[in-house]
């Protein structure tokens, strides 16, 4: 029963979503069935949020209790979770500092702490790209050399000064890069991967709907 019930639910849900894709949205009852199922997903997802909060607090608290390496960072995690969550859950009628509106504690913390920290993490990507590019573009083989030359050309074209210099060369080099490198070889390979991935995803969905694949339930 532990296996049969999820397989039946997966089949019914999957089959409903596939069938309703081919039906008019105005069809009574079934037309909006897929949207209603997706609404259910959001509702269930909302309930499971508590699972996530409990998990993060339990793991962090255990680390602090056992004084594991880096336990003091876990105190910061616990304090951050509570300080963001509690004022945002309290009713605005009690104080304008509660809730999630402009001027609330939550809003202030989000704008002045969380957003800059996320922006900082995103900004570090530039350094990671540089180190990854250094490794990827080493001209060790003819293929790697071709990659290095193409990448250098594309990167040069993508910055305004590079494009201005390339425009000085007769023969419209930027047009050549755009047409043959970006919209030619690059796009063709990307589309090949997308077609393969889409077919793979469809095949896997079919295996799940038909109950052939049960590994997502932890059963082989």
């Amino acid at each position, binding site marked *: 029963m532990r296996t049969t019930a999820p397989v039946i639910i997966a089949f019914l849900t999957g089959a409903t979503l596939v069938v309703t894709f*081919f*039906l008019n949205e105005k069809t009574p009852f079934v037309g909006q069935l897929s949207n209603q199922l997706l609404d259910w997903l959001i509702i269930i997802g909302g309930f*499971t949020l508590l699972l996530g909060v409990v998990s993060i607090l339990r793991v962090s608290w255990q680390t602090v209790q056992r004084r594991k390496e880096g336990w003091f960072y876990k105190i910061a995690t616990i304090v951050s979770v509570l300080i963001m969550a509690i004022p945002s859950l309290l009713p605005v009628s009690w104080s304008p500092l509660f809730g999630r509106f402009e001027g609330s504690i939550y809003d202030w913390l989000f704008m002045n702490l969380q957003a800059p920290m996320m922006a900082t993490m995103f900004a570090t990507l530039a350094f990671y790209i540089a180190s*990854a590019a250094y490794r990827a573009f080493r001209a060790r083989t003819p293929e790697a050399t071709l990659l290095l030359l193409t990448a250098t050309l594309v990167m040069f074209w993508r910055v305004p000064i590079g494009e201005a210099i390339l425009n000085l060369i007769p023969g419209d080099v930027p047009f050549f890069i755009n047409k043959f490198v970006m919209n030619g070889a690059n796009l063709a390979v990307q589309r090949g991967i997308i077609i*393969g991935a889409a077919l793979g995803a469809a*095949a896997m969905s*079919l*295996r799940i709907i038909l109950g*052939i694949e049960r590994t997502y339930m932890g059963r082989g």
Partner: protein
Amino acid sequence: MTLFAEAAFSQEEFSVFRGDRINALIAVVAFSAAVLIFTNWAKRGKPLYLRKIAGLDAVEEAVGRATEMGRPVLFIPGIDDLDQIETIAGISILGRVAQITAQYETPLMVPVRYPLVLAAGQEVVQQAYIHAGKGDAYEKDMVRYVAGEQFAFAATVNGYMMREHPATNIYMGAFFAESLLLAETGNAAGSIQIAGTGRPEQLPFFVAACDYTLMGEELFAASAYLSHEPVMMGGLKGQDLMKVLIVILILAGVILVTFTTKLGPIFKSWFQAV
């Protein structure tokens, strides 16, 4: 298909069936038939050839390395929610990886970004440990929710990599801008890394920073490939047949659009998505 669409809407009457999507219906029926035919062949015991996928063959070796080093295996099933098929593919592979870590008694760490993935991941890992006869070794916190925000998640996992130095990092699922942050940190921490995603824009980052990368369809084939079950592998052959058909249709389209003026546009209209 445009002709069907026009016929469907020119009457301006309510129709239960969407005639403008009949091309998609034909594709779904053909694809399902191909998958089911090959699955039946596999059930009957017909031998099916599958090409080797180096990244998947390396999974067991990578877990073995972690066991020898006495360090954990880090598995990230992407950073998207459970309604994405890439996440489900990642969770399926997690089950296989967890069986190997259970057999070798290697510590496993699975950080997730969504509570639904947390619940599914915990269930899958627990079942894998029970299946391997190591139910007592399972700990609920092997799969843990670390952060709901993308870069907070990346920062937490990067911190874990630099502190714990996992021997093996496996990234399987949907990844976005954090892909390179994770893979480069793992590389700096000296971990052996295996990645797989269906997102072409993230593939170059994984290729540059990881030892093995599963591209697109290989991610979805992974659970069937690792299971060694003929019935599941039958589906992969059906998928291959569809790819051959698509290649033939693309070639036919190129020829018709290049050399004819009337047939080309009609052929193109058959594949318009609505």
